[in-house]
């Protein structure tokens, strides 16, 4: 009887752990396409978030709420039998605020909190592109990279505001993607 209780507790514990691990992993499906490129001693990063403009996001934008897609871009090196090492990381954010009176979108992009660009557009497609597509951003220096070594870029995307009942402090990214590459100078 005691063993049964213990094994029941173990099963429950394992289920809870699985819930904590698997659910965020499923949520953070591979919806970001990442493409690395080495040029002029810089790692140029291109990525695109697909299927980001759900009805919920569109409703948020059209309500005039400042809506932000933030991307955590990490350059990491895989280490066998241990945690991967983060070589460099940066955070990009694309925000939009829709003015329902003038029917214009105010776009802005930041990197690590620093405003990189802002514009006002009228076309929704331009908003989509500006929020989800990033082309050849020279985010990282290639100096610390070792030649002929395996690295990968991981991009985790989050959206704000959230439409959940509660905020889970340990929630992972809404979407993520990665791309591995061998650094050949």
């Amino acid at each position: 009887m005691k063993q049964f209780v213990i094994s029941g507790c173990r099963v429950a514990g394992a289920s809870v752990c699985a819930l904590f691990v698997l659910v965020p992993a499923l949520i953070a499906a591979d919806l970001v396409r990442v493409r690395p490129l080495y040029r002029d001693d810089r790692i140029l990063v291109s990525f695109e978030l697909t299927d980001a403009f759900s009805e919920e996001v569109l409703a948020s934008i059209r309500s005039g709420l400042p809506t932000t897609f933030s991307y955590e871009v990490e350059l990491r090196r895989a280490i066998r039998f241990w945690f991967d090492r983060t070589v460099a990381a940066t955070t990009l954010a694309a925000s939009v605020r829709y003015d329902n009176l003038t029917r214009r979108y105010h776009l802005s992009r930041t990197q690590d909190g620093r405003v990189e660009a802002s514009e006002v557009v009228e076309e929704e497609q331009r908003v989509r592109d500006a929020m989800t597509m990033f082309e050849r951003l020279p985010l990282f220096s290639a100096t610390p990279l070792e030649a002929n070594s395996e690295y990968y870029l991981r991009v985790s995307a989050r959206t704000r505001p959230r439409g959940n009942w509660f905020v889970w402090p340990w929630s992972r990214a809404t979407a993520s993607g990665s791309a591995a590459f061998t650094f050949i100078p």
Partner: protein
Amino acid sequence: MSTTVRQTTPSFRSVAPAGPVRPPFRDNPRLILAGITLLLAALIAMVVLADRSASLSPEFLSEAVLYALTAADLTMLVALVFVLARNVIKLIVERRRGLPFARFRAKLVAAMLALTLIPAVLVLLVGSELLRNSADRWFSAPVDEVLTSANQIASDYYFDRQVAVSDDAARIAGALASVDLMADDVGPVRDLITPEVIAGRVEMVQVYRVAGGPGAARPEVVPIVDLAAPSLPQTHSPASADRLAARALADGTGARAVEPLAGGGDLVRAATAIRRSTDGPIVGIVVASTHLTGELAARSRRITDAYEAYSQLRVLKRPLQGVYLSFFLMVTLLILVSATWMGVYIAKRIMRPVQLLADGARAIEAGRLDYRIEPETADEFGSLVEAFNSMAGGLAAGQRKLERSQADLRRKNVEVEGRRRYIETILERIATGVVSIGSDGRVSTVNRSAARLLGLAPAVIGLPAEEVFGRADLQPLADVLRGLTARGDQPPREVALERDGREWHLAVTATNLQSDADRGGGQVMVFDDVTPLIRAQRVATWRHVARRLAHEIRNPLTPIQLCAERLRRHFSGAPTATRALTDECTGTIVEEVESLKALVDEFSQFARMPAPRTVPVDLNALLNDALRLYDGLFNEIRLDRAFAALLPPVRVDPEQIRRVVINLVDNAVEVLRGSAGVDASRHDHPGRVVIATEHDAAEGVARFTVADNGPGISAADRDKLFMPYYSTKQRGSGLGLAIVRRIVIEHGGNIEVGKNGERGTRFTVELPCRS
């Protein structure tokens, strides 16, 4: 309330370390007050926040507030689980250890939790449901339609104005296509656009030429004409028009913008490229602007703001509901945590002093009466602790008093015991016999002398006195006891006991013992052996008689003898018959006178016996020396020696003791020779005299016995044997044994005669010795 243990004996419990000790949170009223204040402040802040939530940014509510509330909920949930789990684990552990009050705390916590759980959860459920229903009603269809339509109208109006301005800009651009914008003279351009401004179709027109010429690598726009109506507020920004022109140049088409003005209202701008032909290059940019007055713009903005606020609320409906639900959940968890903590706290508040009191009671039970509990509060538990300490103090004082009494009692007991031993020793050592009889009629004390004199064994102690003194030889003492019981204390009296054929003379004093309760306290009987005294008195009497006899008889004997001899001489010449008669008579007279003289000599000798001159003597050697005289004298009689080894020396007059031995052996031999029952020829019953010695260390005497297996002496004759002029022999003066007794008595000893087992007589002589 907090209570600590104070002790008065350092060895009882280790002393607390020096220095101030910070009290735990539960015992610190200031911290508790601060905690309660903080909690109240948080609740008030939440109420205020909930009240002002409408004016706060929905995003702020859905992000920051929801984060904070979720974190608070999780923290409280963890705290609740922790407190409950800790309580359950402690309950299990304490029950396994058998600690008291474990169930009490669990019951109290469960009761507090049960009291608060149901109402708190009910409030949570009802509140959540109300909130959900209210939120659903916020977004009803009519409101949605009105707000959407209003916003559509406002935005359509703005859009129409933008389209109109764009049309104006396109028309002016078409008109300027034929004007040389590169010329220095801008008069034609101004002339062309001035009517547009004056007519009020547009309120401001700005014309730019493309610097670097059409098709340049990096074309730029350069303002050449800026014409505005006087009614246009001057707060507009020229840079805005420049950026719009640049954007139109970059796009190659048109561009529009709405610029809010500082003084109110918006400035609707539209930029259009100026081309000389439809497919020709851009030579210039015209920016036309029209002013939307402040009132109109403000109303439109308010409509849009209301619509956006409404739309944002709908978008953030779930997070906002989450905020309020989290708030409800937090309050519920706060109540549950508080109830649980309060249960634990109250249980501790109750259990701690009770536990300390229980520990104190156990310590008191274990005899540690210096155990004290220091009260720190003045409530009921403090009074209880004070009462406990008072009780412990009383017990300690009582114990100290008791210990002093016990010490006094022990000291008195020691004194009494010493006195008892002293008296007991005296009783054991004195020659006076003492017998005490308890109130129950049983013998309680028999000292050694009494046992010896009365022939009692130590086992008689505890037996009824009637049974002990019912023995035939102790009947006189039984009579004394009966007389004591019947008539009270008796004067000292002399009783004679006959035991083992010997007569004992005892001076007896019997007394009733009185107890405090005036009940029968028993009797005590004290007796002294006066037999030697009586014997000595008899000997002295006989010595006096012998001296008188010797004196009275010896004096006439000589004249009688002389007269008889004179008669014999006188009748020596008488006839034969007369002479014969005379000779016969005088011869008889002389012979009897001689016999009387011999008798008188013996009496005289008995009366004038010298005092013994004692020296240390080996008794065995002395006896051997005396018995050597008999070696080879008798064939039919055996003289056996049974001497004890290591006999201590005795201080005696050797000649007198030798005389005693010879007298006793002579008597034995004479008895054996005259005994018809003893026949030397019979091997089964030869004549035998055994001379034995022994040392009685307890009595401090050396004893020798002369025992024969002759016919023995009757009991009636035994005591008379030692009287002068008493003899069982046909011939003899009867003074031999009297002299023997006198010698022994003058040596401080004693002589007894008794039966020698089944047959014969045994004389026992005791002489004092120092071992």
